[in-house]
C-alpha cells in the first residue's frame, strides 16, 4: 500500500512524515520519531504502558493507527516537562513518593494521571484508582502510585490558588 502523508503535533512540535496505513501510532512515536517514553507492554490494549494524550483524551497508542492521528495534538511523558527542563508536578511527585519500582509502566501512568487531573483536579483515592484502571503495574506498586497522584493534585491545586 502507498504511504500516506501525515501531519500532526507531538509535544508542541509540528511533525510531518510518511507512514504505511497499517503502522500503529506507538511505532510511529518510538521508531520513526524516536519518542520512547510510551512503552509497548502487552500490545493488546490492556496494560496502558503505551498511553499518550491525544486531543485531550488518554489513548492507548498500540490500538490506534498512525494515520488516524492526522492533525492530532499529542502529548507524551516527554512533553510534560517544562520549557526550562523542570519536571511536571506529577513527575516530581512520582519521584518523591517512589511511585515506581521497575519504571516500565511509569510513562503511561503519569500521562494517564495528567488527563485525570485535568478532568478532576481533586480526586479521592477511589477516584484515582478507578481513573488509572487502564494502567497495570506488574510490580504491583499501586499504593505509592496513588499516593504520588494525590500529592501532585494537592501541589497543582496549591499552585493554582496561589496564582489566583
Amino acid at each position: 500500500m502507498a504511504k500516506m502523508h501525515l501531519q500532526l503535533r507531538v509535544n508542541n512540535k509540528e511533525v510531518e512524515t510518511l507512514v504505511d496505513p497499517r503502522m500503529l501510532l506507538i511505532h510511529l512515536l518510538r521508531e520513526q520519531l524516536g519518542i520512547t517514553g510510551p512503552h509497548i507492554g502487552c500490545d493488546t490494549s490492556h496494560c496502558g504502558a503505551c498511553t499518550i494524550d491525544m486531543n485531550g483524551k488518554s489513548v492507548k497508542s498500540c490500538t490506534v493507527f498512525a494515520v488516524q492521528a492526522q492533525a492530532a495534538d499529542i502529548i507524551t511523558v516527554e512533553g510534560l516537562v517544562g520549557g526550562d527542563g523542570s519536571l511536571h508536578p506529577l513527575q516530581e511527585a512520582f519521584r518523591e513518593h517512589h511511585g515506581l519500582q521497575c519504571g516500565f509502566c511509569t510513562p503511561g501512568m503519569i500521562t494517564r494521571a495528567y488527563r485525570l487531573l485535568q478532568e478532576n483536579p481533586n480526586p479521592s483515592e477511589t477516584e484515582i484508582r478507578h481513573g488509572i484502571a487502564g494502567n497495570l503495574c506488574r510490580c504491583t506498586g499501586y499504593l505509592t502510585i496513588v499516593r504520588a497522584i494525590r500529592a501532585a493534585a494537592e501541589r497543582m491545586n496549591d499552585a493554582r490558588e496561589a496564582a489566583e
Partner: protein
Amino acid sequence: MIPAAFAYHRPGSLNETFGLLAQHGEDARVVAGGHSLIPMMKLRLARPEHLVDLQDVEDLRGIRSEPDAVIIGSMTTQHELIGSELLTARCPIIREAALQIADPQIRYCGTLGGNIANGDPGNDMPAVMMALDARYRLERRDGEREVAAREFYRGVYSTALQSDEILISIRIPTPAEGHGYAYEKQKRKVGDYATAAAAVMFEMSGGACVSVAIALTNVGETPLFAKDAGNAVLGTAIDDAAISEAVRCARGIAKPSADGHGSVEFRTHITGVMVRRALMRAKERAG
C-alpha cells in the same frame, strides 16, 4: 503485532461513506472507536483491504432529546455517554453500564455504535438496549430501516446489519419518571467482560410493577432478552417470591460456555445472582 496491509479512507460525510462501501463491498470495513476491530486486525483475524474510518462523519455524533425518546448517534463514545447530563437525568442505566465497560482509555475511544453493532456477546450495551427497547436506525446508500434491539442479534458476531449498511443512531423511548433501573455485572476484575450481567428496567404504579424488561449479557451466543423472567415480576410488588421466580426463569435461558470466566454451572448461577441483585437495586431506586 502488525496487521495485514490495507488502504485507509477517512470520509467526511455519510454520502462519501456509502460510496466507499458500495465501491469496495465485502473488502471494506468501517471502524468506529477501533478497540474491537484493531486488536482483531493485529491478530490477523480480520483483514479488511479497505478501512473506512468514521471519526469525521459528524452526522453520527451527538445525543439529543425528542418529546418521547432520546436519540444517540452511533459514534458517541462511552466517555461522552458517562458525561451526558441528559442521559444521567433521563436514562441513567446507560451511564451505569458505560462505567463498567473496559477502562478510561478505552472509553474515550469506544463508541456506543461499535459496542452494539459488533455482535460480540461479551459487550455490555446490547443487553441494556434490549432492556430499554431501543431501536437501531440502519442506513445504506439507497434506503434506511429500523430494527429493534431485541430482533437485531443472530449469533456470535452475527447481526441483522448488512455489509453495505451503517448503524446511524439509536432511538431509546424515554423511561418514565421514577422508573427502576440497574445494570449488575459480575467480572473477575475491573474492565473485564462479564462472567454474567443483567440489565433491568421497570415501572411501578400503586405498589405493583406495570412494565418490566430484563436482558442478560455474555451467557449465550447473543445477548438474551429474558421475557419470562420479566413476566414473573409483572403485576407483583417485586417481592422475594417474584424475584426468585424471575431468577429461575433467567437461569433457564442462560447458555454460557465454560471458559476462563468459569464453568457452565458457575456462570448460570451468577446469572441468577445478577438478576436478583439488579431487581433489588432497581426496586430501591424506583419511586
